[in-house]
């Protein structure tokens, strides 16, 4: 800084020139506005998501009673250790895993296929989009009850249709048998969930550069090769995103099981969350239920991180 500059600095008035304060205020407003807008959502997130998660972990280390004032002794890892020695949880864990393995790939495949079919050239594209997405916006409770009626023994639509094709009255007690009960849970979940993957993939496919696809086509690449080498690599982030969220969602399967089969017959279609619910609200083992839910949260988090890393590694390689 030369002497001229320092003179200028010295000559700068002590009080900010008119307008500087309002500029500062507007800058402050600009910075603060997004935070202020986020505040209600952040507050709700903190109260209804963050706090319950921490509270759940907290409860899992105590022999917790619901009644205020009753002593809740600290039991350390006892509830977690019980999970590994509880034979009843095995069926619930197996059913959850089976649900995940069956519904996630099918939802992704059907969603992608539907997105590929509903192209710009398809007449009534908007209508198709709305129809496929419609189940997503319906209530889980309503849909589960509807499917319970469809697959009901008395006057169920499924048995009526099968009876027409069979030529005689068919009475399958879908919800009272293990495999048919599980199948109904998978069907309702896939039917309701496929629209979400569809809309995600539809947006991703719209983002695939058309010139790339066209140039591949001009170079003589077949459709499967175009999909394999052009489309899929371009929508890989969406595939990762969809698969991670579907895995998280599948691990949290509850409503459709609770309403359609209630976990029956004899607990054979129960999943981890219905088991945790039963422990909490039927047996009043709140701490044990909290331990199951906490362990699930950790496993799902780990699974999601693993998925993202694997996808990233594949992408890089």
């Amino acid at each position, binding site marked *: 800084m030369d002497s001229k500059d320092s003179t200028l600095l010295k000559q700068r008035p002590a009080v900010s020139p008119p307008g500087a304060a309002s500029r500062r205020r507007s800058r402050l407003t600009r910075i603060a506005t997004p935070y202020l807008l986020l505040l209600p959502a952040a507050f709700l997130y903190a109260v209804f998501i963050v706090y319950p998660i921490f509270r759940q972990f907290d409860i899992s280390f105590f022999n917790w*009673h*619901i*009644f*205020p*004032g*009753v002593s809740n002794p600290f039991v350390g890892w006892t509830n977690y250790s*019980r999970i590994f*020695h*509880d*034979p*009843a949880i095995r069926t619930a864990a197996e059913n959850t895993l089976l649900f995940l393995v069956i519904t996630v790939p099918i939802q992704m495949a059907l969603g992608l296929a539907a997105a590929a079919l509903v192209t710009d050239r398809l007449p009534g594209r908007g209508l198709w989009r709305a129809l496929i997405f419609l189940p997503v916006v319906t209530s889980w409770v309503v849909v589960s009850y509807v499917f319970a009626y469809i697959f*009901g*023994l*008395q006057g169920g639509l499924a048995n009526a249709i099968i009876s027409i094709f069979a030529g005689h009255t068919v*009475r399958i*007690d879908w*919800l*009272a*048998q293990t495999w048919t009960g599980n199948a109904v849970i998978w069907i309702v979940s896939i039917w309701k969930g496929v629209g979400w993957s569809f809309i995600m993939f539809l947006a991703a496919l719209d983002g695939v550069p058309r010139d790339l696809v066209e140039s591949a086509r001009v170079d003589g690449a077949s459709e499967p090769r175009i999909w394999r080498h052009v489309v899929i690599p371009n929508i890989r982030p969406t595939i990762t995103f969809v698969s991670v969220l579907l895995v998280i969602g599948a691990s949290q399967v509850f409503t459709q099981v609770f309403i359609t089969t209630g976990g*029956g*017959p*004899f*607990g*054979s279609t129960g999943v981890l969350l219905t088991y945790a619910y*039963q*422990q909490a*609200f*039927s*047996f*009043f*083992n709140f701490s*044990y239920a909290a331990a199951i839910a906490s362990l699930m949260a950790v496993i799902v988090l780990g699974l999601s991180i693993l998925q993202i890393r694997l996808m990233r590694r594949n992408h890089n390689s």
Partner: protein
Amino acid sequence: MRINRAIRGRTGTVARLFVAFSALVFGGTLFGIANTGAASAASKPKTVTLQYWSTYNTADKEASTIANVIIPKFEKENPGIKVKSVIYPYSDLLNKFIATSAAGNPPDVMRSDIAWVAQLAGQGIIQNVGGLKGFSAIKKDALPGPLLTTEVKGKFYAYPDDTNTQALYWNKADFAAAGITSPPTTITQMLADAATLTVPAKQQYGLGVDGTDIWNMAPYVWSMGGSFTNAKYTTASGFMDSSATQTAVSTLLTALKAGYIGSDFQGGASAVSGEAGFPKGEYAMYIDGPWAINTYAALSPVPSYGIAPFPSGAGGSHSTVGGEDTVVAKNGKHIAAADKFAAFLASPFAQLAMAKQGDMTSFKTDSAAEVKATPSYKVFATQLLTSKIRANSAGYSALDTAWSNVMGQILAGGVTVAAGLATATQEANSALAGS
């Protein structure tokens, strides 16, 4: 300055007057309120309103008897205590009681299924009534079985209310058609009769078993010498997986496979309960409680049936103690009034009035009068002498679910009896340890 002083002076005077006036008005109001309160307190005794929750049946006279006979009599005898009765469906009551307890606003008194008492005591949400005046007065007259259902780890958490047990209902017409003259007295005979009474062409099963839970299966298991837990309800090992229990389960499994036991055993949407199927001729025999008498009396035509004690096996003739107890919410505002009301429900007046509606008495003094008024209770009263209570443990629900689920798998052929009972024992131990 002078003006200011004058203003200040005037202001001060006004202010002083205002304060004096306010004090008079406010003080007077306070005095008036206090006086009115004192006057009303002197003229009217303070009324306590008890909230009483139950699952009384509104379809018959059970609910109306409590509302129109018992509560008015109690209120007349206890001026100053009002009872507000609220009836919930059975499936809702327990969770509503838990939720309101957690919120610090439970009902004062609840008529609880005997199977819930230990669970509620384990959660610390019901009063230990052992030291209360009303409980002490009724305790000595209680029948041993019902009294045991109120005791958890040596402390009393409920007042016995009504009791019941199951006995064998047999269809006289079906027996006559099969050439059988009397109901079976042994389990061996019962199964032989079940085979004779099974007529597939008529869709008639010899025996109906209403489910795989302990309430329905215990009479068979106990009477064949099996058991579920030790006497202190701390372990199932050596009891639930004992050879006698295995024999009992295998015997029922064999009868089911042979087609002598109906659809209700395994459940499902097509299953017909014993109470629905028996009068229609679907089951020639099944076990049920005394309430079925009123149900069948209301039918037209009234089915021709008899009631006999549960047949004996290697372990004797044992049925399951059922019924309800009265519990008082912990830390309630009206414990003394609640104690009075719970004890009144156990009084001969209330017990005999409810006995006429199908709720058998839990008290020795009233037993004879009850059987005299309703002779068909005699077989149940006799059966109660050897009936057993289910595990009185906070882990009972979990244990019952474990047993029921494993039984379902065994009956469906998914697992052998021995392996299934080993799993059930492990799960039951986990439930008992968790409680």
